[in-house]
């Protein structure tokens, strides 16, 4: 991340008050990547210097044509800066705000999520069984598992699951006392193998949930595909082996077919010559909207299972790295108000996609225009973003972020100067030293000058679940993304900007008084 991007203004005229007794220091204030400087005279040697990282909190106030910034430092000092010019004050404040946070690589979504879970229930623990990625190469170092299950059992269960992806907690729904888990398919195989520890693990999930809770296993493959997977060593949980768990099949498109759907949709959107018939039949036959519908309704099913039936839900397909994540992350967005905030959503993406081992590198190697055919590409993450966009369209006041953030995530997932979406798993990111060698997208976004494009000015916390309508009439093509070529983005940006103006009551050149049409003469 370039620090210079965060600096909105380099210089301002300011007066520093270090305390009630200390004399005021007047001069030119400079903002650099790491420091705040105040020099009384142009050639002065006695510079006042503050390391930006030491700022703990910042408060700004403007009055008339000057402003005051109060900096409370980590060393308990309180400093006041009086700055000439309102604009300058705001710019300096924003620059400090951006710079003091520095890098977001320090953020540990799993640990912080566990802290939240621990407040709600003690049925879960944070396990470091995968510390060296030996158990599951695509899981992060720490995972949240039932307290009743020890690491040895986890290791056994991991051996019984494809790619070692044993069932782990994805989301704890406090209100119903139920849990959402995800894993990969069990390695039942043609010989109908069983694994006591794996069965124990799922049993412990039910035991730790609200009394009498049953479980649903949402398999994202059709019953037939799941059965066929046995021939290649996979399969799906049998009812006899997992008492209390009921299996539901909700086939979701994945892999090559999903990629083809994406390619065909983009092709159709770029065709300027077609008739309405052709367009509608291509929109239909590419099946993208059908995929959106299936993803949303499967997520609703999982969420309903928890909220309305009071059941625990385990989601998996085959590898558990694509449609599984799509369902668990959407279900959380539906149920969890915190995941709909700016920070919460970023945490969700980090926890449920990046840390959960969605292979971004493989899936997003090519987008819709490439002729290179590799079987690993699939726009699963894009499908997730589209579903979130549909949610946002149906609940325009309930997401703290706007279309701008979703577009940014889409762009960065496919190509990014930041390291966040690099590699396929946490293990690879460690090997490549992504954290030390690159900058985090999250800090980049949070300090972006274009906050307005990312944030939803109309957001109000909505404590209830968001149940979207998945009827075809309610689903729309995400024009802001798919019609980029043919529709200038300015118009939706204009709307967004106008909404901001109304909400913040700004007077800019754009918002000059509306000239009304002449009243008709009676």
């Amino acid at each position, binding site marked *: 991340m370039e620090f210079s991007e965060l600096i909105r203004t380099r210089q301002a005229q300011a007066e520093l008050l270090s305390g009630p007794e200390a004399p005021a220091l007047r001069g030119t204030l400079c903002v650099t990547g790491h420091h705040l400087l105040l020099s009384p005279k142009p050639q002065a040697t006695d510079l006042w210097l503050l390391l930006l990282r030491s700022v703990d909190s910042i408060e700004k106030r403007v009055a008339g044509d000057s402003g005051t910034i109060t900096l409370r430092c980590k060393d308990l000092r309180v400093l006041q800066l009086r700055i000439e010019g309102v604009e300058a004050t705001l710019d300096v404040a924003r620059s400090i705000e951006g710079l003091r946070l520095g890098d977001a690589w320090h953020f540990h979504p799993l640990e912080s999520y566990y802290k939240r879970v621990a407040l709600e229930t003690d049925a879960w623990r944070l396990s470091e069984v995968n510390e060296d990625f030996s158990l599951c190469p695509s899981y992060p170092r720490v995972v949240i598992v039932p307290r009743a299950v020890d690491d040895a059992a986890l290791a056994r269960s991991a051996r019984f699951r494809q790619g070692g992806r044993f069932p782990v907690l994805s989301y704890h729904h406090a209100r119903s006392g139920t849990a959402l888990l995800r894993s990969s398919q069990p390695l039942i195989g043609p010989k109908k193998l069983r694994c006591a520890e794996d069965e124990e693990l799922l049993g412990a999930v039910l035991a730790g949930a609200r009394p009498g809770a049953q479980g649903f296993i949402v398999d994202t493959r059709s019953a037939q595909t799941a059965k066929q997977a046995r021939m290649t060593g996979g399969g799906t949980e049998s009812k006899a082996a997992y008492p209390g768990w009921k299996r539901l099949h909700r086939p979701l498109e994945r892999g090559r077919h999903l990629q083809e759907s994406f390619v065909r949709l983009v092709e*159709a*959107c770029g065709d*300027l010559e*077609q*008739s*309405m*018939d*052709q*367009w*509608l*039949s291509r*929109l*239909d036959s590419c*099946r993208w*909207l*059908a995929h959106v*519908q299936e993803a949303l309704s499967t997520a609703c099913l999982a969420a309903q299972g928890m909220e309305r039936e009071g059941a625990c839900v385990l989601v998996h397909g085959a590898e558990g790295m694509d449609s599984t994540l799509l369902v668990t992350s959407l279900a959380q967005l539906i149920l969890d108000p915190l995941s709909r905030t700016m920070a919460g959503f970023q945490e969700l993406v980090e926890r449920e996609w990046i840390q959960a081992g969605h292979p971004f590198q493989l899936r997003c190697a090519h987008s819709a225009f490439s002729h290179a055919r590799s079987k690993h590409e699939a726009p699963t993450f894009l499908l997730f973003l589209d579903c979130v966009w549909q949610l946002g*369209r*149906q*609940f*325009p*006041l*309930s997401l703290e972020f706007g279309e701008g953030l979703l577009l940014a995530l889409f762009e960065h997932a496919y190509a990014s100067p930041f390291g966040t979406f690099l590699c396929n798993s946490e293990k690879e990111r460690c090997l490549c030293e992504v954290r030390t060698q690159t900058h985090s997208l999250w800090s980049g976004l949070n300090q972006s000058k274009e906050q307005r494009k990312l944030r939803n000015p*109309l957001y109000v916390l909505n404590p209830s679940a*968001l149940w979207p*309508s998945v*009827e*075809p*009439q*309610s*689903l*729309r*093509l995400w*024009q802001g993304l798919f*019609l980029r070529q*043919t*529709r200038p983005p300015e*118009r939706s940006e*204009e*709307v967004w900007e*106008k*909404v901001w103006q*109304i*909400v913040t*009551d700004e007077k800019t050149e*754009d918002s*000059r*008084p*509306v*000239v*009304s*049409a*002449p*009243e*008709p*003469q*009676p």
Partner: protein
Amino acid sequence: MDHITVTKVENVTLLDHFAGKTLSNGILYLTATHLIYVEASDAARQETWIAVHHIATVEKLPLTSEGCPLIVRCKNFLVAHFILDSDTICQEVYISLLKLSQTVLFEDLYAFFYNPKSTKEMRENGWKLIDPISDFGRMGIPNRYWTITDANRNYEICSTYPPEIVVPKSVTLGTLVGSSKFRSKERLPVLCYLYKENNASICRCSQPLCGFYTRCEDDERLLEAIGQTNPGSQFMYIIDTRPRLNALANRIAGKGYENEDYYANTRFRFMGIENIHVMRSSLQKLVEVCESKTPTVTEFLSGLDSSGWLTHIKAIMDVGTFIAKAVKVEKASVLVHCSDGWDRTAQVCSLASILLDPFYRTFNGLMILIEKEWISMGHKFSQRCGHLHGDSKEVSPVFTQFLDCIWQLMEQFPCAFEFNEIFLLEIHDHVFSCQFGNFLGNCQKDREDMRVYEKTHCVWPFLAQKKPDFKNPLYKGLNMYEVLDPSTLPCNIQFWCGMYNRFDKALHPQQSMIESLLEIEKQKMLQKLKALDEPPEELFTSCHFGDLLSQHPESPLTNPLDFMGDLHALSREGGLQAQKDQAKCQCGDCPYERFEIIGSFRAISISENVGFSGDPGISEAMGASEAIGISKASSEEASCSQQQ
């Protein structure tokens, strides 16, 4: 009314197939003007009001284990699926509704007995609110090229045109009459819109009666004169909005289209908008798709495709855009016609006007445009909307398509319109409701013959009064956009769920950005007013501010208010809000119990107090001992309650 043989049916279920739940039992009331369903549950009482003029079809299905299904389909796309207990009663309700909805005599239309208790003067002033002729003044007419003539004052030249028409100054009355004789239904070329900046104009007419060889000197002279009003251009377009094949077929019948060789300096173009019959069946198919229960994405999209509806919308948008570009970019005048020049011509001329002139994107502008290009120029509202029981082949959603096109523009230019979607829906409601005189009859002469201006009320003051609900908070003002250049690529033309699935609440976004912004603006305005220490009633007359509204002295009728209930749902529903006094009877006994006693009545009205006091006037009129809920003596909407 004698049509109603049963006035109240208990134990009726209303199904909502999208919400996925069955509503609890309720009571169905039949009145002379409305069919009302009241959910019986104690909590939030759901009411469904259906204006009898909105009823398109009533269908009685065979008896099932659940009861007798009765399906009422409405012109505003409400589909109510009732289940009644008794087959006999169901049959009675069915017959009553059939009779009620198929009005035979125009005197029986609601507008002729709708009485909002306003004075004669208020009613007359209401009719003066929108003056279509004043719009020509705005265009600078009369000027050196154009003149407003009352040559048609007794409807002698053309019976479906208004008395005053705008024609080139240079032509004589003889030429006009001569030209009219050469045009279908005497609808000669007249001015519709003048683009002041470059003198290019849009004129409209019907097809020429030329057959294969016939010519008319007067008609050619008139077109030449129109061409000369735009000296900056070497040519003028003649747009035939029909597909070539249709126009050719008309030639055989002695009608047809202009021969470029006979009309100097013209460029002739066919467009390809289908006729009213194609549009009618297209809408029918669309409605079937919208009604289908939980279709898959594929079923929906292929149904949408085969209905052809969006293809037709695109065709209209394409022609509108073509005309606007011809005027703006090519600086050429355009003469538009179809067959009779009152359907497709009205659509594309008014659409092009909206594209060219920001004024038509304001409240007043749209009202004037509808009054001018549709009402006074003789769009056959009565037949197209099926106001009276008659020829179903004349019914066609021409005006609905026009509103759809405006909505498409609003989707593409969210900051360019002063009004929001609800305004369009409300206009759509009243086109069919027959509550106001504006849309009655097929032309100006009809309305005069029906004495609409003396006997009925004008819709525009009623709508103007509810303006706060119809505002688009994103509107950036008159000067922000000039000419709109919409994309008519298929992917930019959308299905209007808010219209065709309007009453399937479960399909709509569950929160509205527009409503939320309007609320924010309202709060801000209230704060400002508080600061100024002024009473706020002048500014807010929306249903959210019910009590303020009734203090509004000029309002010809007061909007009945839902002050306790779900306001959002109400405004979305639009619909004859005047009648939808969603009374919550928490503070009084239920007025509906009294319907029985009263028998039939025209409309109920419930004031904000929801107290029910006797109203002597009404009681006397009915000879009943009890009156239905009227209270606070404000300019409340009257309940027109004489018994038939």
